[in-house]
């Protein structure tokens, strides 16, 4: 990687790919304020890891195993960020806080992310419905 950076006279050569999926709906397929969460994600990734790129909405599906395998269809925005493992470890607490907040506030079954070639999920329990 160092050789390649030299050849392109690049000042920065990060080798770990971090990918976030920003959902468009909650686990009941009700729309959420996706634009706001994309903005907040970019802000976090820019601040912690030096930059990120959000790709236009894709189409996705997620199987909610906690609710009998019900399929949740959405149109996530995919954000890619080239960084380093060291930076991810250093920023892990803030990244976790953000992902947990997004998952909880938008009522997700899980929030997914990819680090290089590994797919990770932070899962959330099904909310109890209370009367009154």
């Amino acid at each position: 990687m160092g050789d390649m950076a030299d050849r392109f006279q690049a000042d920065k050569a990060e080798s770990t790919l971090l990918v976030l999926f920003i959902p468009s709906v909650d686990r009941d397929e009700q729309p959420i304020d996706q634009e706001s969460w994309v903005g907040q994600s970019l802000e976090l990734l820019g601040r912690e890891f030096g930059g990120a790129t959000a790709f236009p909405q894709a189409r996705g599906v997620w199987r909610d195993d906690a609710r009998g395998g019900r399929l949740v269809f959405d149109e996530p925005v995919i954000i890619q960020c080239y960084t380093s493992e060291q930076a991810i470890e250093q920023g892990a607490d803030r990244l976790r806080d953000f992902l947990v907040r997004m998952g909880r506030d938008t009522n997700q079954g899980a929030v997914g992310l990819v680090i290089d070639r590994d797919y990770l999920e932070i899962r959330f329990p099904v909310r109890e419905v209370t009367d009154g």
Partner: protein
Amino acid sequence: MARNVHKIAKRLGATVVDRVPDAGGGAFGAARLAKIFQARLQPSQGQRPGRPTDPSWVLHPKVPMSQATMQKLTQLANQASTADRKVSPMQVAAQLLEMSLGEERQD
């Protein structure tokens, strides 16, 4: 693959669900692998075509493996299958072997 992914996962309170197959890495890798299967595998010819397969796969050696590996292959096969095209765990294994050895040849 990230060297410390399990350590990072623990810090994030996340579970490592699976390895994205070697199809270019990143979020699009898994989708790419599924597309590779769907594009490359063809139904066999005849009265009752079986599962789609790659016509260049002419050898059928037995490959020993652990239960855990077989489970992962089964998971990947389920992910790559569609209503029209079923992919078997051993087709996944064959594809992964072809891809990793193909990469080795390029190195």
